[in-house]
C-alpha cells in the first residue's frame, strides 16, 4: 500500500546491492532511527515510568538484540546450533572486567570491543568440533563449552579478582567527562551508548552477511557438501562464523554487566539463559536481522510487562508472575513453531510482500 516502486530503477549494481534498494524502506529506517534517538529519550514510552522504560525495557532489549544478532549469525546464517550463548556472554563480561582492572584508564568502549575479540577467540576454540560434528550433535559440544565455562567462572578466582562475593561489578567510568558506566552513571547516557553500538553492529552484520563471507556461511548452512565442492573451505567458513557470532555475544555480555546490571554472578550466564537467547532467535526468525530485533524485543518485553502489570494492576506476587511469564515463553515458542516456523520475520516478510502487491493478492 505504501510502496510506489514504479520508476525506482537501478542503473548501477551498487545501487542494486544497497542495504535498502527501495526508497520506502529507507524512509522507514530513518523514521525508526528518529524515534530511537529523539522521541524515546524525550518522551519515553507513553504510559510507562521513564526509569522503567530505560532500565527494564529499552537498554536490555538493545543488549539482547546484539546477543540475538550474534546467535542468529551462527544458527540462522551459518546453520551451526549452539547452546553456549549464556556462557559466551559470560566470557565477554569477565574478560571486560579483567581488561578494565588491568588497564584502568582504557576507554570503556575499547574494553567492551576488546572483550568481544576475546570472546571471538574463545568461540573459535569451542567451534573447532563443528568441523567434525554436524547438526544436532553440535549441541553437545556447545553444552560442554557452557558447563565448562560456568565451572571456570566459579573456580578460577582470578577472573573475579579473588573478591569474596565471587561476582564482578562495574565501577564508574568516564568518557569525555561524562559518567557512562557504573553505579553513578545516568540511564540515558547508557541508553545512547548501547543504542549506538547496536546500530553500528547491525550495520556491520548486514554488510558481512550480504558479502562473500556471509554467502559462504549460508552455503554451508544450505548444503555443506555442495559448498565444499564449490570451493568453500569448511574450516574458515565455520570458524569465522563462530568468531563473528561470539564477538557480538561477547560484546553484549560486557554491555549487560557494565551498562545495565552493574554487577553479575555466574547465574547470569547459566544454561537457562542460553535457552532464552535461543528462543529470541527462533521466535524472531532464523536468518533474519529484522527477526533478531523482533525476537529479542518480544521475548524480553512481554514477560517484563506481564510481571509489571500482574504486580501493579492485579497485585499478584512476583513468584506467580515469574512462573506465568515462563509459561508464556514456552507457549509462545510452541505457537510460533506451529503457526510460522520461520518466526516473526517471515510474518513481517509476508505482510511487506502484501503491501508491495496491494491491492492485488499476488
Amino acid at each position: 500500500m505504501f510502496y510506489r516502486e514504479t520508476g525506482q530503477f537501478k542503473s548501477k549494481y551498487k545501487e542494486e546491492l544497497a542495504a535498502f534498494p527501495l526508497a520506502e524502506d529507507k524512509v522507514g529506517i530513518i523514521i525508526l532511527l528518529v524515534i530511537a534517538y529523539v522521541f524515546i529519550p524525550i518522551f519515553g514510552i507513553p504510559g510507562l515510568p521513564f526509569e522503567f522504560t530505560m532500565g527494564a525495557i529499552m537498554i536490555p532489549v538493545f543488549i539482547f538484540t546484539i546477543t540475538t544478532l550474534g546467535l542468529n549469525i551462527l544458527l540462522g546464517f551459518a546453520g551451526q546450533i549452539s547452546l553456549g550463548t549464556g556462557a559466551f556472554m559470560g566470557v565477554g563480561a569477565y574478560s571486560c572486567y579483567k581488561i578494565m582492572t588491568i588497564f584502568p584508564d582504557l576507554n570503556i568502549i575499547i574494553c567492551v570491543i576488546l572483550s568481544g575479540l576475546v570472546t571471538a577467540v574463545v568461540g573459535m576454540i569451542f567451534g573447532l568440533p563443528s568441523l567434525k560434528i554436524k547438526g544436532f550433535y553440535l549441541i553437545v559440544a556447545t553444552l560442554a563449552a557452557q558447563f565448562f565455562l560456568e565451572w571456570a567462572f566459579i573456580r578460577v578466582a582470578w577472573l573475579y579478582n579473588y573478591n569474596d562475593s565471587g561476582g564482578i561489578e562495574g565501577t564508574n567510568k568516564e568518557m569525555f567527562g561524562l559518567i557512562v558506566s557504573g553505579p553513578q552513571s545516568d540511564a540515558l547516557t547508557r541508553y545512547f551508548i548501547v543504542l549506538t553500538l547496536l546500530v553500528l553492529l547491525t550495520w556491520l552484520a548486514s554488510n558481512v552477511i550480504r558479502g562473500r563471507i556471509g554467502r559462504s556461511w549460508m552455503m554451508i548452512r544450505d548444503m555443506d557438501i555442495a559448498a565444499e565442492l564449490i570451493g568453500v573451505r569448511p574450516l574458515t567458513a565455520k570458524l569465522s562464523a563462530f568468531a563473528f557470532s561470539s564477538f557480538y555475544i561477547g560484546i553484549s555480555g560486557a554491555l549487560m554487566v557494565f551498562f545495565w546490571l552493574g554487577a553479575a554472578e555466574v547465574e547470569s550466564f547459566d544454561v537457562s539463559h542460553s535457552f532464552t537467547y535461543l528462543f529470541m532467535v527462533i521466535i524472531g526468525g532464523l536468518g533474519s536481522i529484522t527477526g533478531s530485533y523482533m525476537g529479542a524485543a518480544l521475548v524480553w518485553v512481554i514477560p517484563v510487562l506481564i510481571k509489571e502489570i500482574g504486580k501493579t494492576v492485579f497485585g499478584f506476587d512476583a513468584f506467580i508472575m515469574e512462573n506465568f511469564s515462563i509459561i508464556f515463553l514456552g507457549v509462545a515458542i510452541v505457537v510460533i513453531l506451529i503457526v510460522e516456523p520461520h518466526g516473526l520475520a517471515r510474518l513481517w516478510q509476508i505482510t511487506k510482500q502484501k503491501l508491495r502487491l496491494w491491492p492485488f493478492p499476488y
Partner: protein
Amino acid sequence: MSEKNSVIMEVKNINLRFGGVIAIQDVSFNIFEGEIRAIIGPNGAGKSSMLNVINGFYHPQEGEVWFNGEKRPSMEPYQIAKTGIARTFQNIALFKGMTTIENVMTGRQLKMNKNFFWQMLRYGPAIDEEVQHRRRCEEIIDFLEINHIRKTPVGSLPYGLQKRVELARALAMDPKILLLDEPMAGMNVEEKQDMSRFIIDVNEEFGTTIALIEHDMAVVMDLADRVVVLDYGKLLADGTPAEVQSNQAVIDAYLGVPH
C-alpha cells in the same frame, strides 16, 4: 572450437571401495581439452562415484588422477575446486535459502578474496569486487536465459529451471572441466532439447571441457564426442558414440538392464 586431442584430464586404474562394496574397479580413461565426454552405464555402474573421484569427494583406494599433465596429489574437494573443476549434481544441490542470482554468485566465491575488514564495511574493494563478479554472473544468467527468474528463490522454481540455475552456478566458476551428473534426468523432451542446446553452446562459446553422465542414449549420441561405458564399476567400452553403440558388450549390458 579448440583442437580436441590434447589430454587435460586422465584417470588411471581407479579402484574405489566402500567397506566391502566395490564401486569402481580398475577404471582408466582420459578427457581431451574442449571435448564433450559422456560417461554412461546402467544404474549403480559407478558413474557418479567416478565424478566424485574426479572432483575429490571420494578418495579412491588405488589409482591416480592426472590433471593438466601432472599427477594430482590427494586434496580436499575445496582445493580441487580451486584447480578449475566444477560440477552439477544428480539430485539438484542448490542453496535453497537463496535466490537465483545469489546461487550463481556462490560460483564466484573462489575468485573473491577481499578480507573481513572490507567485508564489514562493504565498501571500497569489497563492493567493487562484488560488482565486478555480479556482472560476470549476469552475463551467464543472460547466456542461459534465466533473466526472468533472477530474483526468485530457487526453491520455488520448476525442476527444469533449477537444473539450469545449477548449470549457471557451475559456469560461474569459469571451470576448466565441467562435470554434469545427469543434467537431463527427469526432464521432458523439450527441456532435454533446451538443455542439450545449452550444453553445446557452453562448450562452443566458452570452450569448456565437459564430462557428463546421461541415461538417454539418444541424447548422448548427438551430444558427446567420445563415450565411456561403465558397468558394475568396470570399464566396458570407450570410444566415439558410433563405436560404442556397435560394441556388443555395451548392447548386452543395456539389454540386460530394464529401462
